[in-house]
């Protein structure tokens, strides 16, 4: 009897057992993956660099340092004394400030592009998949047609025709980025559609769009998040490509692609730092996104469980 009482006391005193949600499981899996955590830390550092950089940079990204202008190769090297930590660019502007600025633009383009694709692509794919039949057929055929167009050329056309601006870049990148996402979301929706809870929702008279928003899309989120993280680097690559061609953001604004292009065209002169600094940030950020994306896939994708 004594023993029973103590067990009962223990039970009463013990904290109620906390259920682990699927998200908590996924989080635990993600943080066990060392490469993914390292990628996450790199991304946080790069973001911090972009956000804090402007406040600690001794030079402004638009000002020309007239002291180094005639002698970039010697005086424009990276050094702590002159305050040009990353050196200067060919016309004597501080490369640290320029890199900070380029990082802001590239990250912004990557994230906005991925966001557009998440919102448009998920909705589009979920609607096509849920309604099925002829609607599905027409909607996905449109996606097929758009995919078979060499989009980069259309993007270049758009930028030339409507003028180069950040907004146009967003629109152009947004126009193409959602296609893959729509396909993925549609495929997932097709498998979700047959589930009992969807049937229950239909039986209780929930309207189709409410079902899509309340029941389908939340269940798509895992897959969507994974692909969105993998989309950010490809958006950054698109933007850098455009900037490399000289069609991206306009001076004094800059981005990684534009900086890499500047550095690449100057490398015959022995001013390697102009190429290496932006390239370094470009490469580590892409690595970071790829590792985080892979980690998220392992954590969230039900296929590998």
């Amino acid at each position, binding site marked *: 009897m004594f023993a029973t009482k103590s067990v009962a006391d223990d039970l009463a005193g013990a904290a109620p057992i906390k259920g682990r949600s699927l998200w908590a499981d996924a989080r635990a899996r993600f943080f066990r993956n060392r490469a993914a955590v390292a990628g996450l830390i790199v991304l946080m550092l790069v973001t911090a660099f972009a956000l804090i950089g402007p406040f600690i940079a001794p030079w402004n990204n638009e000002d020309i340092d007239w002291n180094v202008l005639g002698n970039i190769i010697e005086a424009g090297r990276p050094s702590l004394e002159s305050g040009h930590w990353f050196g200067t660019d060919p016309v004597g502007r501080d490369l640290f400030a320029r890199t900070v600025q380029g990082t802001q633009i590239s990250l912004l383009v990557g994230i906005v592009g991925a966001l557009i694709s998440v919102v448009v692509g998920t909705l589009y794919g979920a609607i096509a998949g849920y309604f099925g039949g002829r609607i599905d057929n027409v909607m996905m055929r449109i996606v097929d*047609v758009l995919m*078979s*167009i*060499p*989009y*980069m*050329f*259309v993007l*270049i*056309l*758009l930028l*030339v*025709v409507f*003028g180069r601006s950040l907004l146009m870049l967003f629109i152009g990148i947004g126009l193409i980025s959602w296609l893959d996402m729509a396909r993925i979301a549609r495929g997932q929706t097709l498998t979700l559609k047959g589930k009992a809870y969807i049937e229950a929702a239909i039986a209780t008279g929930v309207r189709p769009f409410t079902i899509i928003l309340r029941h389908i899309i939340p269940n798509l989120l895992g897959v969507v998040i994974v692909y969105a993280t993998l989309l950010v*680097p490809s958006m950054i*690559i698109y933007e*850098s*490509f455009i900037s*490399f*061609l*000289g*069609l991206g953001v306009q001076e004094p604004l800059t981005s990684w*692609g534009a900086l*890499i*292009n500047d*550095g*690449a065209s100057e*490398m*015959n002169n022995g001013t*390697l730092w102009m*190429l290496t600094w932006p*390239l370094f940030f*470009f*490469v580590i950020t*892409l*690595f970071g996104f*790829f590792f985080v994306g892979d980690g998220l896939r392992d954590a969230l994708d039900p296929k590998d469980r």
Partner: protein
Amino acid sequence: MIVYIIKRLLVAIPVLLILIVSTFILMYAAPGSPFATERGIPPAVLANLQAQYGLDQPFHIQIWRYVVGVVTEFDFGPSFIYRDQDVNALIGQGFPVTLTYGFWSFLVAVLVGGSLGILAAVRHNTWLDYLAVGISIGAQVLPNFVLAPILVLTFTLWLGWLPGGGWQGGQWQFVILPVIALSTSFMASIARISRASMLEVLTSNYIRTARAKGLPMRRVIFRHALKPALLPVISYLGPAFVGMITGSVVIDIYFSTGGIGQFFVASALNRDYGVMMGITILLGALTIFFNLLVDVLYAWIDPKIRY
């Protein structure tokens, strides 16, 4: 199958027409003119120029003439900038170059990437596997416009082995760097895809059966595992092709190879509408045709697909 191919070709026609018309509308709506100079041009001269190129006609007549010219005579019209050449001549000049290094890049990407991926899967969790995975992750963050300067820096400036640009009628020294720059990131993707699918195939039941009845490993891989493992690779070939076409712009600009990519950006900036539309349509048609080819190949290899 033949019915399927014909059907797909029939669908391709309206798609191409839509592409032609929408690029034309974009061009028509664009501000700026190919004849604009810094000093300005006398109105009488401008009117004459426009009349000569038919730009004074109303929109619907212009577009009708263009589409009819393209469809019936395969005539993409004159270039507005290179006054003595028409678009066909310019494309005829640049396209063989693009085709040469594009072909080699595609071959390298598929063969090297495919064998790397399959080797990695067969030798799963050995140093070979790790090496292949390492290479493909590294190559993923090196798109062509990043790789091109690095290659030139290494092989031209430091080692002095290969020329950093030019074409010279396609001598091999001039082809190597463009091909490496263009193919590497696609090679990495193909390696990743083929490794993943080969791993999946190798753990499947029928492979276990094949091994259980004592077939040699070589035969199991080439006879039973290879074909299904290559299906995802084939479906990636379409996007890879589009990516390479896009990448050729960088290659042409960076290595001055003289392919059609460099005309494209130059014509976009100069408002050389004729050249720009000609290239867009050519590449659009190529893409559509190649996607059809990939789909047919897929249907041929995958017995589950019947048309």
